[in-house]
């Protein structure tokens, strides 16, 4: 049992085992406050345990044997790696729940919806949430935001970062020395500095940035999220040869998938909707055609349900199709239940 190898005090170890936490993967996506509650220990001790877990897993991954074929990994290793997978919270608990914790790292997720449904808002929210420090249950990483449409507004990112910090401090009111250094890092300006923003104006620039990303990510290893908002816009102009468009898009998605696995980051592509004539009527569908729809690992559709906004998981290899309502508030993307604070509803 891997817990027995953790450098933690025996009393905490026995508490973990008695509560049923027998291996490291069961502790991979738990927040410190939840663990503290479970074990009836102080928050700082729970943070210590989780830090020990992450230290052990990073050193463990460095020694995965190559096997007979270089680059090959056993299925068992893949399974334990998958169980350690980190997630980026979307800000809405219901949506996080149906996603299995949040947006998955090492995978490409496509998010599509009609104009005004909140795609860019979700993108900015993810770019902020990826930066939530590890001590507060986040990834503590940075984000690359590639803006193709001009919808990214820095003042909105400011509001969303402010809202995120406000909610964190609300949820974790601890004033101990451990958290003070963490709290100092919770500044809006730090969050804004953690977003690498690229503005591109044509499809050739879009391809150039994607090609450049590998170099950029090698220099900035703390990036955990790449967002392209939107991947579609420049590809809906006159591409006279649709076959060429399919080839270019295919190359783009392959490169992004490779980057997500190589650098352990989440890639989120925002897409537009269009109408397609199927079964004798026009239906809403995501743009860029049928072959593109195979390119992404996960697919989330944002849509209106009456006057309510809803997110629907259309495609995912790990979670079943499900729907969850969400709100776009002054503080960012939130769930229906969390909106009892005084927040402007959009």
């Amino acid at each position, binding site marked *: 049992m891997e817990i027995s190898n953790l450098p933690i005090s025996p009393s905490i170890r026995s508490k973990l085992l008695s509560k049923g936490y027998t291996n490291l993967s069961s502790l991979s996506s738990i927040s410190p406050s939840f663990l503290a509650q479970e074990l009836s220990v102080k928050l700082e001790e729970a943070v210590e345990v989780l830090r020990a877990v992450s230290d052990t897993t990073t050193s463990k991954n460095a020694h995965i044997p190559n096997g007979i074929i270089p680059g090959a990994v056993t299925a068992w290793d893949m399974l334990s790696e998958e169980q350690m997978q980190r997630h980026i919270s979307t800000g809405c608990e219901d949506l996080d729940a149906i996603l299995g914790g949040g947006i998955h790292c090492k995978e490409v997720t496509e998010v599509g919806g009609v104009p005004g449904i909140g795609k860019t808002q979700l993108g900015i929210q993810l770019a902020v949430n990826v930066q939530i420090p590890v001590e507060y249950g986040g990834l503590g990483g940075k984000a690359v935001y590639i803006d193709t*449409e001009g919808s990214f507004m820095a003042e909105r990112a400011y509001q969303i970062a402010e809202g995120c910090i406000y909610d964190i401090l609300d949820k974790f009111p601890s004033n101990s020395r451990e958290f003070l250094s963490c709290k100092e890092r919770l500044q809006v300006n730090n969050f804004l500095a953690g977003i690498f923003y690229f503005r591109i104006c044509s499809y050739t620039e879009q391809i150039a940035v994607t090609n450049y990303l590998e170099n950029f990510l090698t220099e900035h290893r703390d990036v955990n999220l790449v967002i392209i908002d939107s991947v579609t816009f420049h590809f*809906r102009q*006159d591409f006279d040869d649709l076959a060429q468009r399919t080839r270019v898009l295919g190359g783009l998605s392959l490169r992004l998938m490779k980057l997500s696995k190589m650098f352990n980051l989440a890639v989120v592509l925002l897409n*537009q909707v269009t109408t397609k004539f199927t079964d004798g009527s026009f239906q809403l569908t995501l743009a860029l055609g049928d072959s593109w729809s195979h390119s992404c690992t996960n697919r989330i559709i944002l849509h209106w349900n009456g006057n309510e906004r809803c997110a629907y998981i259309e495609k995912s290899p790990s979670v079943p199709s499900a729907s969850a309502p969400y709100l776009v508030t002054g503080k960012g993307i939130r769930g229906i239940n969390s909106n009892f604070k005084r927040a402007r509803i959009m």
Partner: protein
Amino acid sequence: MLSSSTSGDADSIPQHSRDQFAPIPIPIPIPIPVRSLLPHSKLSLGCPVLSRLLSGGLPVGTLTEISGESATGKSQLCLQLLLSSLLPPCLGGLASSSLLILPSLLPFSSLLKRLSRLPSPLHPSPSPLDHIFVASAHSPDHLFMLLYQADRLFQSHKLRLVVVDSIAAIFRSEFDNNLGDLKTRTAMFFKVAAKLKEQAYRFGAVAVLTNQVVDVMGPEMAADVGNNHHTGPALLSSGRTVAPAMGLSWANCVNTRIFLSRNDEVAAVGVNGEDMTVCTRRRMEVVFAPHVPRSSCEFVIRKDGVFGLEIDRQ
């Protein structure tokens, strides 16, 4: 000048000419620090209440659409924007000249009359009309060409506002209804929008378009088309459910969508039950925008401009 060879052989083109056509290398992309984008300049709408609805006004670097039925105040608001851009930034303007593109220059004299009636923002100053360029575009291709030619205006004449009134009129009847033409039309939407957005971004300008509306089937009929067509809460004008023209693909092209509506309401009824005073209530609604929530406010159109009354958030 190239030699008069008609064979089209590349080797017949002299080397120095060939070098002129070498592909331009794309520079390494550099990330922009997000903090440097604050505060985001905005163009005031010429009325403090309306500007507050948009948290200061129309953001620089974005494309805004103003849609509504005829006679809801779209063109009047555009004229107000043209004058507002002349103001210095401390008063909500862009200290710039502006370009107005119309489908035809026929109503030019009435346009001049309306402009001259609006209070000139600069005192004492040369006539604001010296800083407003007007052009007419009779087709989408022509519009695209005009925008290309406008590049030099952006650089040399400090152009910072482009208004197209209306985009629907320029696109109308240019394309037939067959599938091939529809695809070309959609591609043209994105081409025009991308050009406007690129100019807005590169030169720190604002791009505004007006659009017409079409009737849509109400939600009761939605079952026939499948409720997939739901693009948000319904927009009402003159008691009918309407939607901005040019469809879903065009809606994907703009950053901000503003909807102007008017509804005639009975304000008072006479004692005998027959004399009714009907008043026109006008509403400006922000349908979607990258920096403000859905909200609306009432406004009035007076001789001296368009003014908002109060703000209520939905």
